[in-house]
């Protein structure tokens, strides 16, 4: 079963972290280890980081179908910072992986305890749409 694990961020909090060097390195190493474990277990499908929210664009179709782009988002909007897609045997396994991601170390090596949103990725269109 495929799940998407999403790390969200508020625009205000998003940006280059201001931590000591070894804490930054520990964070990056943790994420690399997590991804390697998911590769080894065969559960890894995809993992991507997104560029910062201030680079985000909102696009609508204009009358002629051409894109109208702007960078204005509502205050308090949550932005996607990064995500994993995993292929697992049960929702509990997806939550366990999310808990691992949540525990990634931050400043001082303390777990960040980030909120990770977990959604199932269905194989076809959502059932209520059929």
């Amino acid at each position, binding site marked *: 079963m495929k799940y998407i694990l999403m790390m969200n961020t508020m625009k205000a909090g998003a940006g280059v972290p201001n931590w000591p060097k070894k804490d930054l390195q520990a964070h990056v190493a943790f994420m690399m280890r997590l991804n390697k474990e998911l590769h080894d277990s065969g559960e890894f499908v995809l993992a991507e980081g997104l*560029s910062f929210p201030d680079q*985000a*664009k909102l*696009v609508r179709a204009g009358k002629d179908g051409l894109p109208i*782009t702007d960078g204005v988002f509502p205050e308090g*909007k949550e932005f996607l910072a990064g995500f994993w897609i995993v292929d697992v045997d049960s929702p509990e396994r997806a939550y366990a992986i999310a808990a691992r991601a949540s525990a990634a170390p931050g400043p001082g090596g303390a777990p960040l305890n980030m909120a*990770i949103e977990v*959604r199932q990725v269905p194989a076809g269109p959502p059932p209520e*749409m059929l």
Partner: protein
Amino acid sequence: MKYILLMTGTKAGVDGYRAWSKSDVERHFAHLHKLNKELTEAGELVANHGLAAPEQAKVVRAGQGGLPITDGVFPESKEFLLGYWLVDVDAPERAYEIAARLSAGPGPGGVSTNMPIEVREIMSGKSSEMQ
């Protein structure tokens, strides 16, 4: 260059979908299906998924001993990801063009929903210098 195109909605909006007629739904999916086919033929589609209804969403944090603490309570107004497209294109303008096609998708009565599509560049694993 890889971009992610995000289609979001609120719980209220999703409830609204449930009121669409069968032909509205079919027309909407036909539009998306056609777009996906074009993107595949153009060699631009990397991935596309629609997500399960927000009722199923969980937020997980690490609890004691690394065990997950899950919570499924979300405010009515929270924006949920409904689906995403990952595309590999030659320029940002092309990503915006594709997003406009998504935005123009038909809703009830075949009228364009003109929904806003968020476009974000994906961080690349490549460095730019051959050091």
